[in-house]
């Protein structure tokens, strides 16, 4: 490599960095290797890459997909994007996922565990206040967490906190979680969108009023229609550059797109992938395409014929052409899956595992070995699973024909898909939101006794490793264990993972954001209003 310290290289690298392909650390390292001085590189970074400092002001108009008129403020039943996006504005969490996907402080400023990871202590921010002016204390945190625990709880996050035996307020600004087994990931769990901190009210919490301690407070709004928020001046965090935020629920893809094109909104949370290429041609619009840990899975019941034979499962995994599916269904906006439920953007991703390719011949021979030639199976799906779900299954059925497998695609009603089809039919298509760590995901859907073990997969070795890794605080050992678990899922498990979908959202060009975009939710981890600004 010719050692040139010319500005061209620097400009090129800055360009890469601006596109988010290079982090600040990498940028500095490369710059030093290229013979550019630290101060110069650093200066260049701040002026060219991070651009001008964020400016305050303006009203951020945000078009959002997936809102329902019968949503509520109850954090235990948050399910639509409307509520997830809104929750990150008007409420706060103990921890948050930073734009670079590391774990950072929110309401908690620091946290530490006992060596066995069975007890975690969080220190709270001393200046945090609710919109009503009340101070945020440990009592509020305890009440908010208990909202998701106990027999009477109707919270969807109940299963997340089953290992928690007790939550204690040590003083006004210290909270301790006691667990029945070691869990190295508890601080990560605290970023779950259900676990928002609400003001305590008697024994429970006051969720009805919509009071919270997030960066923006609700001025007015209607579920499933729109919300107006304005900046909460007493917010404990950094950012919140916009004066006001207006969220509008735009469920129809065409409505979102035209609203953005005509300038009725500044940003939309989801773009119709079919028109992505056409939208990119618009000079006023910038598209953000962010890889995520949100997976599309196709679980097969490992205890039901014909899927009880591992050869059949492998054959089905080999007869899917992932590249064609990514090209045609996700229009390139996806990361290829490898039949284990961990994405490259997530912690502990095992890079050494080879990619599984489309190989209908090998699938055929496996079927022969299993004595299941001329296999015919039904694959259930629905339009609501994700945009293109039905198309994906139809395409898969076409690809599997080459391996001699007949797949009947059954389009189930969207309404009630997750209560009547998923976990009930032996072969389905499912869309999973990203979970912060592999442990959460694996315990949720691959552990032998998990309620959502969608593939009915029982693997003793996997389950043993899962328990060990959970309490392991040594990062290197832990990474090895996750590698082994992924191999087991890939070669024995009952889940086909075609791809991890990217978050694809678009904004008007005058909306600016930092170098990285968080991969936990669309629009910078659902925190665009508190992290972005107007040029």
């Amino acid at each position, binding site marked *: 490599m010719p050692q040139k310290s010319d500005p061209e290289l620097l400009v090129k690298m800055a360009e890469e960095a601006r596109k988010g392909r290079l982090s600040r650390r990498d940028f500095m390292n490369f710059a030093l290797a290229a013979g550019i001085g630290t101060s110069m590189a650093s200066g260049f970074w701040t002026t060219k890459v991070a651009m001008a400092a964020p400016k305050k002001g303006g009203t951020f108009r945000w078009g959002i997909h997936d809102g329902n*008129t019968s949503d*509520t403020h109850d954090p235990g039943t948050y399910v639509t994007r409307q509520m997830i996006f809104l929750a990150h504005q008007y409420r706060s969490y103990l921890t948050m996922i930073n734009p670079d996907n590391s774990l950072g402080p929110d309401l908690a400023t620091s946290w530490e565990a006992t060596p066995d990871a069975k007890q975690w202590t969080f220190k709270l921010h001393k200046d945090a206040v609710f919109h009503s002016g009340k101070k945020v204390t440990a009592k509020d945190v305890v009440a908010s967490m208990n909202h998701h625990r106990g027999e009477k*709880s109707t919270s*969807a996050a109940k299963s997340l906190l089953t290992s928690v035996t007790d939550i204690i307020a040590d003083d006004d600004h210290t909270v301790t979680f006691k667990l029945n087994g070691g869990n190295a990931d508890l601080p990560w769990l605290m970023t779950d969108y259900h676990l928002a901190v609400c003001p305590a009210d008697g024994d429970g919490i006051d969720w009805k009023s919509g009071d919270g301690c997030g960066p923006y407070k609700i001025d007015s709004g209607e579920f499933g229609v729109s919300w107006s928020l304005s900046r909460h001046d007493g917010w404990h965090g950094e950012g919140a550059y916009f004066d006001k935020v207006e969220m509008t629920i735009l469920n129809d893809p065409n409505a979102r797109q*035209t609203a953005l094109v005509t300038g009725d909104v500044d940003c939309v949370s989801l773009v119709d992938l079919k028109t992505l290429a056409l939208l990119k041609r618009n000079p006023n619009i910038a598209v953000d395409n962010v890889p995520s840990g949100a997976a599309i899975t196709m679980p097969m019941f490992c205890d039901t014929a014909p899927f009880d034979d591992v050869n059949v499962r492998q054959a089905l995994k080999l007869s899917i052409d992932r590249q064609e599916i990514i090209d045609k269904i996700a229009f390139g906006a996806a990361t290829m899956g490898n039949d284990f439920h961990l994405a490259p953007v997530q912690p502990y991703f095992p890079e050494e595992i080879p990619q599984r390719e489309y190989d209908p011949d090998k699938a055929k021979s496996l079927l022969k070995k299993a004595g299941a030639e001329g296999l015919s199976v039904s694959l259930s799906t629905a339009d609501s699973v994700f945009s293109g779900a039905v198309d994906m299954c139809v395409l898969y059925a076409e690809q599997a024909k080459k391996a001699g497998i007949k797949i009947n695609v059954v389009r189930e009603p969207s309404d009630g898909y997750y209560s009547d089809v998923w976990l009930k039919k032996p072969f389905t298509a499912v869309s999973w939101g990203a979970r912060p760590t592999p442990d959460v995901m694996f315990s949720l859907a691959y552990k032998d006794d998990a309620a959502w073990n969608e593939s009915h997969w029982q693997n003793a070795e996997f389950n043993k490793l899962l328990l060990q890794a959970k309490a392991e605080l040594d990062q290197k050992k832990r990474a090895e264990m996750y590698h082994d678990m992924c191999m087991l899922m890939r070669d024995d498990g009952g889940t086909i993972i075609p791809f991890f979908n990217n978050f694809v959202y678009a904004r008007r060009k005058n909306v600016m954001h930092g170098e990285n975009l968080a991969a936990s939710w669309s629009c910078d981890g659902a925190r665009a209003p508190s992290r972005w600004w107007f040029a």
Partner: protein
Amino acid sequence: MSDVLSIVLKRLGLGVITLFVISVLIFGAVEMLPGDIAEAVLGMGATEENVAAMREQLGLNQPAPVRYFDWLSGAVVGDFGVSLVTQTPVGEVIGPRFANTLFLATYAAAIAVPVAIFLGVVVALLRNTLFDRVANVLALTSISSPEFFLGYILILYLSVKTGMFPAIAKISGDMTFLELLQRTFLPALTMVLVVVAHMMRMTRAAIINLLSSPYIEMARLKGMPAWRVIIKHALPNAWAPIINVVALNLAYLITGVVLVEVVFVYPGIGQLLVDSVTKRDFTVVQACCLIFAATFILLNLAADVLAILTNPRLRYKK
């Protein structure tokens, strides 16, 4: 006149029975839907325990007939209960949205009805000419295009390309009336396109149907100009079928606009109903359906009464 009054009373009585039957049917249908409210609200987050807890909280453990009669005993005194999901009174949930729906329907009707009747008369006058044929083709094309598609095309030409009207009909309380009309013009126009054709064709057919009657022949032989024959002699006798079709279409403007609401992001009652069905929110579904049914019944009643009032023969029955 007492005839009319007795008809109205009788029809209102029948209407109440119809509403009752509908409420039973809707309750039954919602009960038969796969999954229940607890599962629907918790979605993918449903586990057996929290579903059970929520069922208990909402009183779903009681047998279905008990729940129905609980609801009915409230409904007969005007208390339609609270939304099962949000726990707010149904009136508060539905009220503002129904007002929005009524506004949009009125807006569309105010354009559609005069236009349709005027065009109907004109094409009846110019029947079998080029104009008639062209109007016919355009009318048929507009009814046979899916309404969401008409909406998309209107958005493309009147909003994206020319910027004359906003693409999303977002409305708020502090808008002036003119602003409101401008904001909601595209959804209203879509609905106009959907209903105009039907009414226009019926007007045309009803008038042409009468043209071979002897008294029209007479008027024509008298040397009366064709347009006067139609306005003075044919139209008054054609009112009954026209009013009927108009009523049917008005009902459609109120009850059948879910897709238009979705496309233009208009906060009307249709979207609320679909969402409530998804969430199995029985009280809201029931209230919406009853409002729709009552609208339909009242409009039909009004149509029949008007038909009687415009036709002396029906008014003074032997």
